[in-house]
């Protein structure tokens, strides 16, 4: 009994135990600014890319509210630029500022982060988006566990007719 309850509790809690955390892409220090760039999801895939930026001074003190512009440029098509301004509203961790970029093709992309007119550049490899159903597999399969338990229940009930409603 408690095991079943534990399983049910796990089923209920499964989405909660997921921990966040974008991947640190690079940290760079120039002109007294130390910039750390994080991306999410991991690995980055075609679709929405969250770019979060942490800005610190040379002593490591976090600088809040600095205007940050994020640009993504595909290596194969340098004339095309996707850009957005980062803001704390989009970031969960309010020490960071985030921008959402919709990247529509796989392959290498240049990522430019502009902080107070200082550009910090890195590269990111965008992968093909995985099939949605594969990502959602745990979500899609749990009802079939419930159905299996229900079938087991019927089986146990038929094996022990005294506990079945018909025998009462």
């Amino acid at each position, binding site marked *: 009994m*408690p095991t079943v309850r534990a399983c049910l509790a796990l089923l209920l809690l499964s989405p909660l135990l997921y*921990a966040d955390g974008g991947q640190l892409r690079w940290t760079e220090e120039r002109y007294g600014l130390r910039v750390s760039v994080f991306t999410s999801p991991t690995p980055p895939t075609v679709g929405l890319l969250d770019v979060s930026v942490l800005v610190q001074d040379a002593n490591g003190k*976090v600088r809040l509210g600095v205007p940050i512009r994020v640009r993504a440029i595909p290596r194969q098509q340098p004339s095309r630029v996707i850009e957005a301004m980062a803001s704390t509203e989009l970031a969960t961790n309010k020490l960071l500022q985030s921008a959402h970029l919709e990247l529509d093709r796989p392959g290498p992309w240049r990522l430019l982060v502009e902080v107070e007119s200082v550009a910090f550049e890195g590269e990111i490899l965008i992968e093909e988006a995985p099939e949605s159903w594969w990502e959602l597999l745990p979500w899609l399969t749990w009802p079939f566990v419930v159905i299996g338990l229900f079938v087991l229940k019927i089986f146990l009930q038929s094996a022990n007719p005294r506990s079945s409603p018909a025998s009462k």
Partner: protein
Amino acid sequence: MLPAVDAVLRSWPYDPSLWITLAICAAIYLRGWHILSRRDPTRWHAAQPLSFLGGLLALFLALGSPLEPFTSLLLQAHMAQHLLLVMVAPPLLWLAAPFFPLLRGWPAQLRSLLAPLLRSTTLHRLFARLTHPIGAGLLFFLTTWSWHLPALYELALTSPRWHYFQHACFLVSGLLFWYPVVRPYPAKPTWSKWLLVPYLILTDVQNTALSALLSFSDEPWYPHYAAMPRLVGSVIDDQIAAGVLMWVPGSIAYLVPLFLIGLQLLFPQAAARPGQTKPRRIALPLVDSSEQGLVRQWKETARSPLPLIPEPSPARGVGRSHGSPLPKGRGVRGKGVRKPRWDLLRVPILGNFLRWQFARPLLQLTLLVLAVVVMLDGWLGPPITPLNLAGVLPWIHWRGLLVFSLFALGNVFCYGCPFLLPRTLARRWLPASRPWPRWLRNKWPAIVLFALFLWAYEAFALWDRPGATACLALAYFLTAFVIDGIFRHASFCKFVCPIGQFNFVTSLVSPTELAIRERSACDSCTTKDCIRGSSNSPGCELALYLPRKQGNMDCTLCLDCVHACPHDNIELRGRLPASELWSDPQRSGLGRFSQRPDLAVLVLLFVFGAFANAGGMIAPVVDWQDALTDKLGWSSPLPLVTAFYVVAVGLPTFLLLFTSRKYVFSLVPLGTAMWFSHYCFHFFTSYEVVIPALQRVAFDLGWYAQAPTWVCSCCALVPAWLIRAEILALEFGLLLSLYTAWRVADRSPIKTTPYAILIIALFILGVWILLQPMQMRGTMMG
């Protein structure tokens, strides 16, 4: 406050699934505890719910507080999170003795479903071994040490799935570890309590060793944190802080219970409070590790229909069954003693509001004003959907809120229906005396209108025509006005209104239902005001006689019966969604569902219409329709849309109607879930569209000087939780539909199988539809 500290304190992750899950757990526990505490207040005391809520709060702080976003930046934050999962939440949850309250908190039907599984001796043996100090201690030790190995810890930090698994391991091992220490009721261990002394000492020793290794190491253990930007101190400082956090609070967590248990063991007399009576124990085979005793108890337990509910107090006048110490189930409850139900009308504030005489007119008036504004903007505003209130409010907001309210509460829209307010006023002058024609006293007129609406919505892109939307609303007002001005009672609602029929079918899975409180009051009632009306209220105009009313079909939730009843004998009670479909009783004003082909067609139209309506706006279907239209050289998509609806809705309706009419009602939960998922998608991705539309109206009227924030006219990005929530809703629909089919088939697995296959196939189709790119209708992107 320092800006950085302020920023940290504002870093709350947004995860509705966390709040909802914790709220559901709390609600189930509190309901169960409330029932149990009324029966045996000595056993179920107020500290238990506080402890349970404390445990949930610890989980919330670990996973939903500003701690969470910092776990990938600071090892000490991650350590604090793990300590909450391992050392704080589990003992608090166990101190709440959660087994019985959590079980009792579920509805009886679900509890009875679990009963055979929970009686399994194999599961009992397994649990007894896992919670024996040796098993639990070893598991805890292995979990703690293995997950702190750099390779595994790094794996968790780089992979969200492994991180989730790590947290699950910590929580489960924590729960198993603290179980023998707390021994929550009804635990009945057979091993000596002295075993807990080495159990806790050894755990503290291993905890001390691990934290010392971490604290005194000169090298960072985890390269992930070494690469992270430093927010406070160096990486070694962070590691030391994490080690100290594990060492000091960890040791306190083990040594305090050790001290208390030691006191109990050394001074057993002093441990018991003077005058304290030992609460009765119910011999349930939960944790008895003695297999013989366990099997014996199980055999005794199995004779009771549902041996999972503690026995009612003898003081309440309910005796024991055949001298067994086991609790009684529902089957032994005395006749005439009705279990008190949750009644929405008795809920403070909301209940008072609903019972207020002018609550309905007030809501109707509000919606009427909104409808008039929408119609005026539809005719006078720009014919661009996202800029016009008639293109936004009815198709995005109203539909989303409609299905949400039906799922969460009941038929709230019919309660506040604005179409009825003008006719109510006009009835002062109009005759409204003719009876509705006998040959039309069925759902066929509404079915035709509902089918026409579904088809026209797609064929003429109603969602993209604010002017047509306004005309549709006006036509609705006029039809309601004319029909109810000529014919008596609520003929329009019962026989004509397609929105009403949609609401009636959806409300079959609503969690509330209007019903009588006490049968005896109705038996002795001579006036029958609930159906005939009184000076206060017209009574039920939909011909639903409350003592014989079953379920929500045809109930507009107008509460006229509540206002009319002189005995205050009507409640809006909670119930299991879809439970009214599990049997086929004679229903007042309706007869039996199985003998109503019109109702079966309505349900089939509703179910397959849900899939066709959502399927009609996904990329593969739209592309296919466009390609076929081009290939055939048609200038209009009308024939193809018509063909699509005939095949997707008409054909299955026809086939199922003539093969298995009895079972079609089992599809209602799945159909409802599909409507819900679809409309919630549009609502949550496009609700902001109303902001620029309202600003534009205000600007046109000269009330607003700035340019509207057009950026909101583009729908928001689809959040990850939304697709999960949509699928979750569909899955609940699947399970409820399957269970309903099983009940309709008289619990026969063989009879259920074909319908189960159909339901699962529809579910798979629904999931496929939800995973496709969907047109963002009503937005700039639509």
